[in-house]
């Protein structure tokens, strides 16, 4: 697998606390890679290290096969979670400033900016001061600044916050289009439904450590083994009595009139056929399917499990 970024045993300590503790992960080229984790887990520190803003205390970061250096930032685009622009500066002038900092010539930057401004239909903003823009408008400008120099690696930290659903969707499609053109995207978010929608692989960081890495579909498969969703039109107790010996745990997902939907986790070794047979005998089953956990559930259960083991 072609990797754009290889992070090996990276640690970073600040006075009194550890931001990253021996974190390793590889980011494959041309994918959308989710970087997940609770607040304060160390994601931003990791992103800053990838951006060559801070240096790790130990460990190595390889970019395109060589040690990450200051020159590589021209190949990285970063949209931080906490982002702002120079308020008194005009939009066009400001976009040019950032483009030139990324190494574009004045002429190239002008041409590319005009294209993006046309595409987002914001050409009329060129001579406006940033303080005249709304938050959403400023976010669009920031997005353009992030992607303008066509970097190989894009890092978006909570890109959709502050966007209405229409603009969020527009942005999502732009990000996927960039991936289709060959860019690698690191996507850091708390919005797990968007992770399911766009990410190929993820890493979950909790308490400065990498506690889960892998393919989204595989993780869900794996964590969803022995889990079934079952809907019955009888009172749920009837069903539970019938399958009691087979299941480890259960919870009621929703109740809709007569119909109750439950999530069951069966004991290892119990087959789907055995469970369905038992269920059919106990109640009127209207729905039966494997229940893949949502990324939300994966997130919560993985973090809670880790936290209870590392008190």
């Amino acid at each position, binding site marked *: 697998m072609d990797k754009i970024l290889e992070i090996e045993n990276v640690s970073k300590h*600040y*006075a009194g606390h550890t931001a990253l503790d021996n974190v390793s992960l590889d980011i494959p080229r041309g994918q959308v890679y989710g970087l997940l984790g609770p607040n304060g887990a160390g994601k931003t520190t990791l992103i*800053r290290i990838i*951006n*060559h*803003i*801070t*240096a*790790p*205390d130990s460990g190595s970061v390889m970019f395109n096969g060589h040690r990450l250096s*200051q020159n590589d*930032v021209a190949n*990285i685009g*970063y*949209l*931080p979670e*906490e*982002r*702002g*622009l*120079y*308020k*008194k*500066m005009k939009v066009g002038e400001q976009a040019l*400033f*950032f483009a*030139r*900092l*990324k190494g574009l010539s004045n002429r190239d930057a002008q041409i590319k900016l005009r294209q993006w401004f046309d595409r987002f239909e914001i050409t009329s903003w060129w001579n406006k001061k940033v303080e005249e823009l709304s938050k959403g408008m400023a976010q669009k400008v*920031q997005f353009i*600044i992030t992607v303008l120099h066509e970097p190989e690696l894009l890092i978006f930290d909570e890109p959709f916050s502050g966007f209405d659903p229409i603009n969020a969707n527009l942005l999502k499609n732009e990000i996927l289009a960039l991936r289709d053109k060959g860019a690698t995207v690191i996507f850091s978010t708390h919005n797990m439904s968007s992770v399911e929608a766009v990410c190929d692989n993820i890493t979950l960081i909790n308490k400065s450590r990498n506690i889960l890495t892998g393919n989204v579909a595989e993780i869900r498969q794996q964590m969803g083994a022995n889990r079934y969703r079952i809907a019955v039109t009888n009172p749920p107790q009837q069903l539970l009595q019938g399958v009691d010996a087979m299941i480890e745990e259960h919870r009621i997902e929703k109740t809709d009139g007569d119909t109750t939907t439950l999530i069951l986790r069966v004991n290892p070794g119990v087959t789907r056929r055995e469970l369905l047979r038992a269920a059919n005998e106990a109640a009127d089953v209207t729905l039966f399917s494997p229940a893949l956990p949502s990324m939300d559930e994966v997130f919560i259960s993985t973090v809670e499990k880790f936290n209870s083991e590392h008190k």
Partner: protein
Amino acid sequence: MSKIGIVIAREYKERVSKKSFIITTLLVPLLFIGLSILPALLMAIHESDTTTYAVIDRSGIVMPQLEDTSSLHFVAVEDSLQSAKQNSDYDGVLVIGADIVSNPSEVTLLNHSAANMDGEMAIRSQIKKAVETERLKAYNLENLKEIIKEVEADVTITTYRIDEKDGTDSSALPSEISFAIGLGVAFILYMFLIIYGQMVMTSIIEEKNNRVLEIVVSSVKPEQLMMGKICGIGLVAITQVAIWVLLIAAGIFLLLPALMPADVMTEVAAYNSGQFDAATAINDPYMVSTMAQLTQVGFLLKIFGYLTLFLIGGFFLYSSIFAAIGSAVDNIQDASQLQTVAMLPFILAIAFATMVGSDPGSSMSMWLSMIPFISPIVMMVRVPFDIPAWQIWTSLALLYATFFFMVWFAAKIYRVGIFMYGKKPTIKELIKWARYK
């Protein structure tokens, strides 16, 4: 263009194109001229007011010797004190006792309006002179008037500095003028260092609050951003000084000759070519030598040259400290405490300035002007006096070495500080940050 260059260009352009910059740059010299002309103007208006006194001279000695001045007018009256007081033609009544020669305190001044210090002083000195003349008369000296005229002496000192190298003496400014120039220049420097140093700090705090910083540092190294900002703002300061120097130079070389009487300018020219003779001069030799010095290109170049060098050194030193402070805090309120520490040397320097100015050659002054944190101000007080050049250059070398160290140190703090939000750091923590990798 390098990244630092792009940052410098942005910082510079943003500030120089601001209306407030253009206005202050042009307004301050006007204000300066206004402030120096205003007192003279007020004096002129004031002097047109004449006070008329009715003089009742019971001795008969003083009145003949009282001389009218531009603001005082004396009229001898024979009336009684009562009627003189009631006469509205007079602003007041001056009563001189019959025995004034033996008893000089027999003088009464009655005013209709509030007492006037200048007038009282003038009257007192005139009466004193009259009484002294009268007393001298008692010695029966012949040619008394001629003797007094011969005895009166008006001392002026023309100062030169002995040039040890070629034995020719070069003219030097009178000390009080050097003192005034030194303090003036030091004060300008002080204002600049504080105003522009704080500009660096507030601008960093703003970037931090604004969260634009995070985007910028993903393209530029934090150290480069800090240096770019300091250099950009420093260039703005230099631009402002340059404009002011041009305005001052234009004032000296174009306005001064036009405003000054022609004979003064001829004597100034004579002074500069070494043909000036104080004995035969029409104008006050003191003024001529001062004017000659002030209009000397070499002298002005020396002052402005060193001013620029000390401005640059002092600016980098202080603005890097201010940059470190700005990076460490979230708002200006939090900065005040750390700022006080940074400003302490300034206050010391200003306190030393007067002392050093009154004795620039002392070894105490010499050592004070070598200490980097106060040297820009203290040394600028000494520069208008002819002090050895090696002292200035040593002081500059020490200052520049310190600023290089301080910039390096501040960059280390800055790099960490810009990502620290929330609690206000202590100086101890700042030093700890500098050790992070």
